């Protein structure tokens, strides 16, 4: 129900922002995020931007993941680990890769 999807604002007219959502252009209300600027990523919930995503924070997190990936690669090289320990995750990860665009939007839900 608290589904909210990150999208980039590609046009602003007054309190209305245009975004691409699941391959479709949509107008969303910026009434709750008057600070939103063109090019910002916002979280969209039921047609409203509810939060402007902090780009620096997002990059921080992605950097952390990249570091994890590196240290993991290192660990893999050091000792060939058994892959089946995290089979739950990889199995559904595969299913995810084949999901269609609307599903990608749908399951960012919450």
């Amino acid at each position, binding site marked *: 129900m*608290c589904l909210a999807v990150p999208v980039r604002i590609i046009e602003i007219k007054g309190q209305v922002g245009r975004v691409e959502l699941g391959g479709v252009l949509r107008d969303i209300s910026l009434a*709750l995020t008057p600070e939103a600027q063109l090019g910002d990523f916002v979280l969209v919930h039921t047609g409203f931007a509810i939060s402007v995503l902090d780009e620096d924070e997002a990059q921080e997190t992605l950097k952390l*993941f990249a570091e994890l990936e590196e240290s993991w690669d290192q660990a893999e090289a050091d000792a060939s680990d058994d892959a089946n320990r995290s089979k*739950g995750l990889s199995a*559904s990860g595969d299913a995810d890769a084949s999901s269609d665009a609307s599903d990608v939007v749908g399951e960012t839900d919450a």
Partner: protein
Amino acid sequence: MTYIQGFRNPTAARHLIERIRATATAPVRVMEFCGGHTHAIMRYGLREALAPGVELLSGPGCPVCVSASADIDQAIELSLRPDMTVATFGDMIRVPGTRTSLQGARAEGGDVRVVYSALDALELARTLPERQVVMLGIGFETTAPTVAAAAAQARAEGLPNISFYSMHKLTDPAMRAILDAGEVRLNGVLGPGHVAAITGWQAWEFLPREYGVPCAVSGFEPTDILQALLALVESHAERSPRVINSYGRGVTPGGNAVAQGLMGQVFQVAAAAWRGIGVIPASGLELSEAFADLDARRRFDLPDVTEGPLDAEAALGCHCGEVLRGVTLPPDCALFGTTCTPAHPVGPCMVSAEGACAAHYRYGGETL
């Protein structure tokens, strides 16, 4: 969608799982408050990947699951009145009331329309001037400001034929009610990221301060959730309960002040009837005095639902209430996967994609 992909990094996820396992030497019991988290956790197989070190329990954070039967009954009754249209978010349409659902009401001739946004209800009112449109306000702090914004706009436009039936609920009183009841002991709470986008993560400081329980506010991608769970097991291991903001890109300490301001103008805090939990004082939102003329309950003189039936399905053997309180797991319900399936849901937890029973049914592999 490249924005999301980075947060679904499978290698980082595997590494986080290893770290959580190494840290959680004794079982750590965590409640994911939000139904969206339940859905993601089941979908990505995180429950199994982390067992037995981390025991994940679903919480009450599924707004349609906690909507009282009596509220739905009233919405159904409104939709069956002549010259009346009920607008609702799609999640609610199949949730059973006492006798039927809004979908069932539609089959009986009720006028029920699904809207994507509360603003769409305003558009309905504009195009149907001869009808009274009632928008159902469903959802937590995430959704309430959007309905508030629509109400403010309806007021500004002077739309005469729209009103709002608020079933909005607040997250922290429910969390407190669960902890106060003492039915379940928690070592951590996975905080609802999109609620916190509005309220700010500081709104969850009562958990460590008053209950000694750490809380990690989390996004909804698998790596977001794992990062938050790692923070929780670390906080638990260090015996230093605190709130950790693991969703820095979307959540600030104080939240969205504009949204909070609008919510405060349009709504006031009131007692609310939670399906499966009961009536909790000061846990819901009703239209404020300033917006009383847009309150469907007052416009149509509707009775107070806190007196009515909350969970009609309990009599049918449904344990949704226990599931929402983290006391029972869906597969432990005798009806799970037999009498009760997403196609034929007995209780609300089997209806919504984020209902714990529906998520377990779809992804749990625990069907009979």
